């Protein structure tokens, strides 16, 4: 499965697709990037006259690249329209702000994938190679009929 196949299988679309490119993926981890368009809606209100990317959005970028892309790769064609990866926990430290038009790189390392749960150590860097945020994210493979 190549990077384009994985991005095509992501269950997100604009304005909530936060993966531009996967530069590397294997069974132990993934590296990918996303550039924040200055026209994204949340910049209008976070903050008033001072746009900064919200921490929840940075968390989402790390979850989409670090957890969901890797999950689809690990499930290797058994991911389908009836399954989903539900975010179950996050623990993130935020170290530096990310402004509009910045590109961020997410590096995720698998801690384990057992009993349908994928847990990863994630780091986000900016283009200056500064660490922007770091932590762990985890999710479970669920069938959509279980959660609706």
């Amino acid at each position, binding site marked *: 499965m190549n990077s384009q196949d994985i991005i095509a299988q992501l269950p997100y679309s604009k304005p909530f697709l936060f993966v531009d490119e996967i530069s590397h993926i294997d069974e132990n981890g993934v590296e990918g990037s996303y550039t924040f368009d200055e026209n994204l809606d949340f910049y209008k209100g976070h903050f008033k006259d001072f746009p900064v990317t919200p921490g929840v959005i940075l968390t989402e970028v790390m979850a989409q690249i670090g957890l969901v892309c890797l999950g689809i790769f690990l499930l290797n064609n058994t991911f389908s329209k009836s399954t989903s990866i539900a975010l*179950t*926990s996050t623990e993130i430290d935020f170290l530096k702000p990310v402004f509009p038009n910045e590109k961020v790189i997410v590096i995720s390392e698998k801690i*384990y994938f*057992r*009993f*349908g*749960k994928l847990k990863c150590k994630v780091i986000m860097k900016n283009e200056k190679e500064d660490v922007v945020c770091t932590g762990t994210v*985890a*999710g*479970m493979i669920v069938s959509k009929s279980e959660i609706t």
Partner: protein
Amino acid sequence: MNKEQTIEELKSIVKPYIANQEAFDTLTEETDFINDLKINSANLVDVILDIEEKYNIVIDNESMERMINVKAAMEIIDAKLSEKE
């Protein structure tokens, strides 16, 4: 394997994940991980992995599915430990 000791060890493993303190305080062999201790299914995976690490055993999917309460967990730990001998 000493039963009381194993129960105490299991208590310290599940403690970070429980959401019902009262059921934890009165824990018995019949205590159910999800229904009584209110451990969520994602955290239950961590409980199982912590058990694997503590007893140096490997728990397969089938055993995982049977591991619903303290008693079942003790039986599975016992069985996996005796397989190693």
